[in-house]
């Protein structure tokens, strides 16, 4: 067999390590410092590697850590999703489809089928692409991430995970190990809707919308709105949420929430859509996602 050496041109090569527990992974991250990079499904990181945008000296593979692949419904009606659960698994799991349809919807529209086979929820969150779909859905679901460090584990709202463009608050010696989705209160529904040009594109605008109705069924008791594609990070539309709280369930209320969200986001202008267009689509998709979430809340 021919020697492969000639065809591998780049100078920088990374070693590959495959820990079998979270503790072992954390020890490797501590040992190798900033040069170590955890690799989950690789569907974002390997692009950066290929094109020289990231050059770690150690890749810490996470596929052999059993804790990270669990997908568990809690007795209270919540969901624990290990960081290495794939988008494909989330999109096709009956537990997620029935118990948490907004998450299944978001996972089902990430990139293309071959990417979804390998891409993971943890990798998606840690890559922190502002136009990724799952973060907006998880914000709408009030989800938290569980982050392991050598000093112990901490929990953080998904909306507080993102620091800037492709940047999170997970430290270089920490590992995002799971996503916790709380059990929904009564009369709660959530949905994720995406606007895009081609089927495989990132979100031009994505809206995750979670809402809880008051006992009368005609008033918004609570709302949580996550936005994709309209900022430097996935966003939580706090203004739009407060516009809805206590308001009657009407088209006018949803319209007002859409206008508040369009105001508080800061979309880019690029070849796929101008800033103005994205703001208009935020209004449209808040209305549509709100209607789906409402229908689900009423079925509860």
């Amino acid at each position, binding site marked *: *067999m*021919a*020697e*492969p050496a000639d*065809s*591998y041109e780049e100078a920088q*090569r*990374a*070693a*590959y390590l495959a820990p079998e527990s979270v503790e072992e992974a954390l020890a490797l991250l501590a040992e190798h410092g900033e040069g170590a990079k955890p*690799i989950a499904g*690789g*569907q974002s990181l*390997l*692009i950066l*590697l*290929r*094109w020289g945008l990231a050059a770690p000296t150690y*890749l810490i*593979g996470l*596929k052999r850590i059993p804790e990270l692949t669990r997908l568990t419904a809690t007795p209270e009606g919540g969901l624990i999703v290990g960081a290495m659960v794939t988008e494909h698994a989330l999109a096709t799991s009956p537990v997620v489809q029935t118990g948490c349809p907004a998450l299944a919807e978001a996972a089902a529209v990430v*990139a*293309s*089928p*071959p*990417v979804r*086979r*390998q891409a993971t929820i943890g990798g998606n969150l840690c890559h922190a692409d502002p136009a990724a779909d799952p973060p907006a859905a998880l914000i709408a679901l009030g989800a938290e991430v569980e982050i392991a460090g050598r000093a112990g584990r901490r929990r953080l709202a998904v909306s507080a995970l993102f620091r800037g463009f492709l940047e999170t608050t997970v430290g270089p010696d920490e590992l995002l190990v799971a996503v916790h989705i709380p059990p929904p209160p009564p009369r709660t529904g959530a949905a994720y809707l995406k606007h895009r040009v081609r*089927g*495989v594109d990132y979100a031009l605008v994505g809206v995750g919308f979670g809402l809880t109705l008051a006992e009368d069924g005609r008033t918004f008791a609570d709302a949580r709105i996550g936005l994709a594609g309209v900022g430097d990070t996935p966003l939580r539309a706090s203004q739009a949420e407060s516009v809805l709280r206590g308001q009657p369930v009407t088209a006018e209320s949803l319209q007002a929430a859409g206008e508040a969200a369009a105001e508080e986001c800061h979309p880019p202008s690029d070849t796929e859509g101008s800033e103005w267009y994205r703001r208009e689509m935020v209004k449209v998709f808040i209305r549509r996602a709100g209607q789906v979430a409402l229908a689900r809340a009423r079925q509860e």
Partner: protein
Amino acid sequence: MTLHINGKSRRVRAPADAFLVDVLRDDLALTGAKFGCGMGECGACTVLLDGAAVFSCLTLAVEAQGHEITTIEGLARDGELDPVQQAFAEAGGVQCGFCTPGMVLSARALLNEHPDPSEADVRLALSGNLCRCTGYGKIVEAVLAAARKTSGPS
């Protein structure tokens, strides 16, 4: 590292961070998987991993160990084309051919899971594979024809 490819064990010397597509093409001379975009956009590098379509440009070779890898070279059995390949040829689903290995393997992966797919299923399953020649119509026709031929009377 040792890779299981097309039913055979292949030992290969490659760096720990080598991409599967490069190992297939450069070390094993399996050039059916094409290197297209290198960023998961075009699907030309699609292979099967345990029967499911994945992008070999977004797969570390080292992580493909322990899985059954199928490339387009391994699809025909005993000189007989896979029904999907046969259908592509008959329906005219091939023009320049660059996307064809990926298209055929994505279709094969679909039929592995859903032997009797709808046209919408086919279009979704092929959504990660770009073709710049055919306009997709004949490719979709070919996959549906292969499904009809193999899923038996329904």
